[in-house]
């Protein structure tokens, strides 16, 4: 029987009652996002939210495209408002970057910014290349503000299954296709490992988190905006392979965590962690356990038995639903069906 995403997420110390925006300050997303939008756009959005208050909980994205309507998107539909001008895009970008594009060069190169509260802003426009590599985006003609929501407690049921008899964390790989919820699950696992679960006798341990794309901790100027626990050190924007080794050498973590591993250069870092006896909790793209062997980096990690637990999630159509939990040999421990 598949494990389900809690309808009303709650956990030890976690906030009960559904998604919240950001970690540090539990404020509505409008209070966090509107100050970063051009003054001319604010009344348009607040007007819409007054007419349709349900958007406060259902809105997932706000899209600004030069010369086209401002769009507020929910899961499947969107609401189109007035046209967005070039000046409004520029002002919004000035507010979001604090008039400091030079300080966000890597973010512009990667095509996204992070706002306080962990909200991600995707950038589109004319890409400037240097030696065949993306240097920056200028001018920016479209912004996609993705409203960040945490789901504290989603890993409540899963967490005990990732502990061995001595109460130590198993090296674990979370597998799902894009949109399956593996990053959300990883964030809550990191929080619980860091904070501890007193009711099951697990005391928190220090976690080293490599957040290459700022999706897990959603750091804003180096400070995590999402709740990743009190014993978590975050290397934000750092390449995974380098970050894992850095954390191992410098910060002595009890557990390492990172998102989307699978490249060959990740293998050395995972192997090093393995030799140091530090379990790694990571995620990987895939529809099934069998998919892992198709990726060179993951194949090597499987051969070296780097992971003792595999958690497979269902796809985008049922985000956050755990299909099955497998042991290091691929045997199904809990879930609907055996995968390999």
């Amino acid at each position: 029987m598949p494990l389900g995403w809690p309808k009303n997420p709650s956990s030890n110390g976690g906030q009960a009652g559904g998604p919240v925006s950001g970690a540090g300050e539990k404020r509505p997303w409008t209070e966090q996002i509107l100050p970063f939008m051009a003054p001319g756009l604010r009344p348009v959005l607040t007007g819409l939210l007054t007419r349709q208050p349900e958007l406060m909980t259902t809105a997932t994205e706000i899209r600004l495209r030069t010369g086209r309507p401002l769009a507020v998107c929910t899961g499947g539909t969107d609401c189109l408002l007035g046209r967005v001008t070039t000046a409004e895009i520029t002002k919004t970008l000035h507010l979001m970057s604090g008039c400091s594009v030079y300080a966000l060069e890597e973010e512009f190169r990667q095509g996204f910014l992070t706002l306080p509260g962990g909200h991600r802003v995707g950038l589109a426009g004319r890409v400037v290349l240097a030696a065949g590599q993306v240097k920056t985006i200028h001018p920016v003609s479209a912004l996609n503000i993705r409203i960040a929501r945490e789901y504290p407690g989603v890993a409540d049921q899963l967490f005990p299954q990732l502990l061995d008899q001595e109460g130590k964390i198993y090296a674990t790989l979370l597998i799902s296709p894009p949109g399956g919820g593996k990053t959300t699950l990883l964030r809550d696992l990191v929080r619980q490992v860091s904070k501890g679960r007193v009711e099951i006798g697990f005391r928190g341990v220090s976690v080293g988190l490599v957040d290459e794309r700022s999706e897990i901790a959603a750091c804003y100027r180096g400070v995590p905006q999402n709740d990743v626990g009190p014993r978590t050190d975050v290397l934000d924007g750092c390449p995974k392979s380098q970050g894992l080794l850095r954390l191992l050498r410098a910060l002595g973590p009890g557990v390492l965590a990172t998102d989307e591993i699978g490249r060959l250069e990740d293998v050395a870092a995972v192997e090093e962690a393995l030799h140091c006896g530090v379990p790694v909790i990571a995620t990987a793209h895939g529809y099934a356990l069998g998919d892992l062997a198709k990726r060179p980096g993951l194949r090597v990690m499987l051969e070296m038995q780097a992971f003792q637990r595999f958690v497979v999630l269902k796809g985008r159509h049922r985000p956050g639903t755990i299909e099955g939990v497998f042991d290091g040999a691929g045997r199904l421990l809990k879930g609907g069906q055996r995968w390999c």
Partner: protein
Amino acid sequence: MLKILGALLVLGACGLLGWLRAKDLHSRPRQLAGLQGALGLLATEIGYGSTPLPQAMANVSQGVASPVDRLFCQVAEKLARSQGDPAAAVWRDCLTTWLPGSALHPSDGEELGRLALGLGEAPRDDQLLRIHEIKNRLAGREEAARDQCQKLARVWSYGGVLTGLLIILLVW
């Protein structure tokens, strides 16, 4: 009695004018040097710390003497309150307000105004290049201002008093 009072007033006014002009001549190289120091700090904030511009300007304002600190402090405050205005416009506005209260020439202001080009919007290397370029130009101006100060400061100090005496003699 009135004649003596008038003569003293003329002497005092001319002496004060001369002294103020001499003070400006002394202050200009000091302020130009202060601005170079401030630009050096700004380059460090941008190049090494990648500090966001409002914070960088505030940090610079704490590291330099008056009246240069006021310029950077104003820019920091305006940027922090900005509702999406470009940093270039904020810099130009604050410079226009600040310049008349300083000992600098309008041509010095034009040089400083060049900092606005791409401020906060250009890549880091371009920002640093422009800052160093302006800093070098200000260094040249500072040297010229020191020469001018050595030549003219005494002339103005004594010249003011002497001019006052000459007026008194002519009118007496």
